[in-house]
């Protein structure tokens, strides 16, 4: 057992060498936002998609664009609007007058990194088209089914303000995102640095340091990260505490939760914790990994009651209480 762990550790150390290169290259362009960059990598390595909530101007698009250029992979940005159609996203059949035949025109979803900007501005049928592609990792146009390229990461953004004329993502759809990030403003020093960088004549750019092949190799290494049964039980305890809080001495939040986290939460928390351990260059998962990523995995999977809403208690407050109550192994 000991030898295996050593081997895994060595492998992880080797495979995760590029993590520092990526963060340092992205850091040339993006100031701060370490939390967001780290989560983007976790999404990329754990095969999970990310829902990002934050006000405009927080470098969301730039971060994904920079990440795409650093790993030398495809990037597409799709601005979701009320008149967007599923075909605009996944592609359609075009009639060729010369041949007299229909040919497939693939949509922007056929890329490695897809930024679905303001996903809640489009109606449900467009959202469903994207979310289905995310889940199945394949798209059917006409009679043909096309696999999406690997790695494939969708980063969807939502604006927490301006809810008028939007189509909020249904809870069942939100559950398909591995992580939901809440991006905040940079601090004073970071903002000063951003201001200086972006007002120079030469806009900084990042070099390509990793190939998609490296990412795919890293993805398989992430699956090998060791997770002890104690940690697995810790994850199960956390998820179950959102469903049956009373069983975990959380009587005070029993009335606040309408629906607890789904089994997808346990799966994604495990995968994300493994990816977190990987980017920390560790071959095994610790409670630290689970705690670090727990909020991002759970905040969109818990539906609070009207009573909680009336008391201005959010799903985040509930997750915080759960994480602070469950004993670490």
């Amino acid at each position, binding site marked *: *057992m*000991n030898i*295996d*762990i050593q081997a895994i*550790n060595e492998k992880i150390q080797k495979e995760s060498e590029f993590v520092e290169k990526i963060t340092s290259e992205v850091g040339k362009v993006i100031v701060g936002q370490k939390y967001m960059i780290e989560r983007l990598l976790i999404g990329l390595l754990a095969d999970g998609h990310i829902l990002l909530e934050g006000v405009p101007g927080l470098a969301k698009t730039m971060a994904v664009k920079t990440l795409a250029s650093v790993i030398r992979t495809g990037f597409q940005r799709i601005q979701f609007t009320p008149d967007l159609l599923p075909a605009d996203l996944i592609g359609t059949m075009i009639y060729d007058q010369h041949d007299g035949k229909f040919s497939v025109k693939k949509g922007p979803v056929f890329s490695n990194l897809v930024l679905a900007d303001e996903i809640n501005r489009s109606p449900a049928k467009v959202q469903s088209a994207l979310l289905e592609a995310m889940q199945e990792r394949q798209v059917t146009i006409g009679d043909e089914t096309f696999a999406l390229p690997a790695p494939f990461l969708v980063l969807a953004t939502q604006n927490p303000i301006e809810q008028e004329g939007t189509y909020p993502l249904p809870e069942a759809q939100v559950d398909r995102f591995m992580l939901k990030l809440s991006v905040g403003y940079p601090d004073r020093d970071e903002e000063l640095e951003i201001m200086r960088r972006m007002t120079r004549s030469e806009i900084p750019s990042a070099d390509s340091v990793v190939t998609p092949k490296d990412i795919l190799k890293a993805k398989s290494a992430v699956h090998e990260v*060791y997770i*002890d049964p*104690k*940690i697995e039980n810790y994850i199960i305890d956390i998820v179950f505490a959102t469903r049956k809080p009373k069983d975990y001495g959380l009587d005070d939040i029993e009335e606040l939760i309408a629906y607890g986290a789904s089994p997808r939460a346990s799966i994604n928390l495990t995968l994300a914790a493994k990816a977190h351990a990987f980017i920390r260059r560790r*071959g*095994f*998962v*610790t*409670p*630290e990994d689970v*705690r670090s990523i727990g909020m991002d995995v759970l905040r969109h999977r818990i539906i609070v009651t009207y009573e909680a809403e009336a008391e201005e208690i959010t799903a985040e407050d509930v997750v915080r209480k759960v994480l*602070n*109550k*469950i*004993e*670490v*192994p």
Partner: protein
Amino acid sequence: MKVLRFSLFVVFILSLQAVPSFSQDSTKVAALPTGGEIRLSASVDQTQVPLNRTVSFTVQLQWTGDLDKYEIHQFDNPLLENFEIVENSSANRVANVNGETRAIQEYEYTLKPKSLGMGYVEGLIITYTDMGNDKEYRLTTNRIDVKVTDPLPEPGSKSWILWVILIFVLVIVVVIFIRQAAKKKAEKKRQAELEAAASVPLEEQYLEKLKDAVDLSSPDLNVGDGFARLSRLLRLFLAEKFHVAGLEATTEDVITELHNKDLDDRFVSETAESLKKADLIKFSGGAGEKSDLERMYTLIESSLQKSLRGELVKVLDTPQEETEEK
């Protein structure tokens, strides 16, 4: 002639009994005015009576003027069907109503039913003499019917139920009392234990627990399990001594909290080393080395001893000393 006499008799009877027909109310009144001056009424206090209870039958005569205005002749007890008289009484009184004197003579009979069904009080004929003209008159009451119903349970007839309830209540009270007493005793014992424990310094308690947690000399020592036990013991001590979330926080968070508490740097670094080492063994699936376990044991033991001597808190001790000097 016969017809004329019969007709006169009927008219006489009708004039004598010019009363409305009774309803089955509890009070039935038969009133017959003679010259508009004397009234007779008969009533029962209830229209239904249980077999084992009694009903009151009251006959009342009243007129305007003094008592000696009329002479009421002695009359027989009323004829009864399915009733028997158990008591009777009479009373005379004079009242002043709206400025005029009113004389009242009252006869009351207490009747006991004999069997279930209907009971009847037959009409009563009362004769009296008007002392003014020395003429004799008659008055008759109507027949009154009373329904005799099933007997009511007599108090004490089902006393055993009451006894059972009483005994049940008593048993519950005794059980509650015993439980309360036991609870109080247990609480007292717990308090005593707490007081006894409080008198022993926390560090000494944990030094004892440390000995019990891991026996380093045991040949069956499970090193991996030993790391988990020592880690938990150390976290419990930190939680109790320094009020950190010892069991709920991750190692990193515990170390950060300890740093924020201005504790001795060496203690914090040794604690961090112990917890991190334990985490490594616990979560990497490794068995761990006995020498590492011995080192962790020694570090915890020495930290507890230092804490006992008050050598862990570097900032909090200073103001206390200053105060003592002052």
